[in-house]
C-alpha cells in the first residue's frame, strides 16, 4: 500500500528537528508555478494530491473552480501551473 508521508513529528523530545526522520511538505511557488518539495530523508511524500483553487469573496476556497491539480512524485515534488489570479489562492494537499 502506498503511503503518504505527512509532516507530523511524533516525538518524545526534540533534540534537533532534522536529526531523524522528518518530513516537511513544502510548496515552492515560482513564476506561476507551484512546486511541492518533500524535504526529508527517506522517500518523502508520494502521490499526494495537490489542488489549487481561487478564493471566493468571502475567503473560502472556491471548490467549484479548480485552477490546477497535480500529484507529488516519489520524491514528494511536483510542479503545477495555473493562470495567475492576481490575488490569494487556496492550496489543498490531500492523501
Amino acid at each position, binding site marked *: *500500500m*502506498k*503511503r*503518504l*508521508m*505527512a*509532516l*507530523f*513529528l*511524533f*516525538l*518524545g*523530545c*526534540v*533534540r*534537533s*528537528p*532534522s*536529526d*531523524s*526522520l*522528518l*518530513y*516537511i*511538505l*513544502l*510548496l*515552492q*511557488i*515560482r*513564476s*506561476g508555478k*507551484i*512546486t*511541492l*518539495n518533500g*524535504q526529508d530523508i527517506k522517500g518523502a511524500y508520494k*502521490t499526494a494530491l495537490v489542488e489549487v483553487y481561487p*478564493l471566493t*469573496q*468571502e*475567503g*473560502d*476556497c472556491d471548490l467549484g473552480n479548480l485552477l490546477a491539480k497535480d500529484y507529488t512524485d516519489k520524491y514528494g515534488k511536483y510542479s503545477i501551473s495555473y493562470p*495567475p*489570479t*492576481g*490575488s*490569494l*489562492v*487556496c*492550496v*489543498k*494537499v*490531500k*492523501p
Partner: protein
Amino acid sequence: MTKKLKLTAVSSGSNLVLDMVVPEFSFAGRKNPIATSPITRIISSRFASLAKGNTDPKALSKLYLRANKEMVIRFGLNKKVKISKNLSGDEVPTLEEIPINWNDPKDLYSVSYLSVLAGFSQLASSHKQGSTVSVGDVNSIIEVFAKDASDGVF
C-alpha cells in the same frame, strides 16, 4: 533523557487534508519554500473567519495578513520580534516572510516551526483514541486548534 523523533505516516485512506491560503505575489521569485502545514491550516481557518461576510475582494489581502501575523505571534514563530503592548503589525512578518532554513537544524526559525508541529503530534499522542497515535488523532488535534483560532481569541 532520550531524544527521539518518530514519524506518523499518512495512509491514502486518511482524512487528513492540509491547506493553505497564500497570495501569489508572495511566492514570485522567492527562494525559500513555503511550507504547507497544520500552521497554514490554522491560518486558513482564522482567515476564513475574518473574511466571513466580506463583500470587498480587495479586503481579502488585508484580512489574510492579519490572520497570518496573528498566528506568527501566537505560535512564536519569529523569535526576533519582541512582543509588547505597542507591537505594530508592521513589525511582524508573515509566515512566508520568515527566512526559514529547513536544511539547517540550528536555524531558530525552523526549530520554532517544527517545535510547534511536534507539539501537535505530542498532543495527538496524549489524546490518542487507540493504542497508538494515528493520523486521525493528529487531524483531530489540528482541527481543535483551527477551530479555536478562528475567533482570534486564545
